[in-house]
């Protein structure tokens, strides 16, 4: 009985770790329960597999920080309305991001407010 309970606990806690987006690698390095918002300027946008990437200069507490934002795959982002022309270097955007657990300046993309005020992904 004891070992059954142990197994159940393992299975339950493990299910909570699983995320719908894990693919090229596990998303366990991101805190998927937490979302932060970055007011930022795009410095690089890379549209290629395995993950599209956005690098930005973000305004954080009056300082400028360089952040790397990992996205899902280009073909997956197309389903969400993205194209490789959705953003470009120099664009002012608001990024909704699940931050790295390590505290480093990076995270997983959740959503974006584009310069014209329109949004893609989850911005809440």
């Amino acid at each position, binding site marked *: 009985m004891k070992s059954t309970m142990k197994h159940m606990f393992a299975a339950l806690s493990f299910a909570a770790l699983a995320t719908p987006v894990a693919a*090229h690698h596990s998303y366990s*390095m991101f805190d998927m329960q937490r979302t932060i918002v970055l007011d930022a300027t795009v410095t690089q946008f890379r549209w290629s597999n*395995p993950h599209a990437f956005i690098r930005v200069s973000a305004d954080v507490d009056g300082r400028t920080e360089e952040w*790397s934002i990992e996205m899902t795959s280009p*073909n997956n982002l197309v389903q969400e309305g993205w194209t490789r022309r959705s953003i470009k270097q120099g664009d002012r955007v608001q990024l909704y991001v699940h931050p790295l657990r390590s505290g480093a300046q*990076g995270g997983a993309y959740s959503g974006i407010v584009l310069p014209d005020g329109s949004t893609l992904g989850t911005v809440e």
Partner: protein
Amino acid sequence: MRLSVTLLAGLVLAAGPASAQISSPVPEGLANAEDSAGFAKGRYHELDALPDWGGIWFVSFNRGPDAEPQAELQLKGDYLMRLLEWQAEVRANNGVERRPRGNCSPPGLPRIMMLPQYPYEFLFTPGRVTINQEAWMQTRTIWTDGRGHPEYVDPSYHGHSIGHWEGDTLVVETVGISAELEIDDGATHSDQFVLEERIHLSPDDPNVLVNEMRMTDPEAFAEPWLVTTRYTRDRHGTLIEFQCSQNDRNPVDEEGYTQFD
């Protein structure tokens, strides 16, 4: 001078085998060599009888309240102990997982058939079904020409797949999947692992493809593991190149932890 002579000798050696006849044996289980997928000409018209699987397909996830329950993998013996140890380590490490392989190497079967983000396409030619997977640009071959499994299968990412059509359902059996690959996070199988798949369009929606997987392993599994994966069609979509090393921002360090560049 000596260098150029050495080079020339090397070229001659390399060119040697190309002029010889290359001839693999007729696949095991085929009565006639002409039945092999190697003889495709004259049989393309037969493909018109197969179902409409055109376009590309994305794994679809339903995690809402009406999602159908998926069975948990039930391991036994040492395989279960290793999974529990791995899970305990993840919990002790704030949920961060260690991985046995680099992120630029593919997951192999069966996980390659369950990947979100990266679509699939299914190509029919006489005697075989080819599945192209955007992820890691993998190609999977299912032989439908009537051959059996070879007596010895080298363990590999995709093993050896044979299939046949039962009406509009492709029925596939795969053996020889490397036991070094994870079947689920932290879980492995033995070299006795067998994957059976029944792939067909959904009776409710012709733009949904259903893959009913049944996995058995007398060494590692307490019971068969049943997983159903659904794919949604994008009729005019195309696969995008996937050259992992071109954009590898997630190398795995010597401890097995994924880095973030």
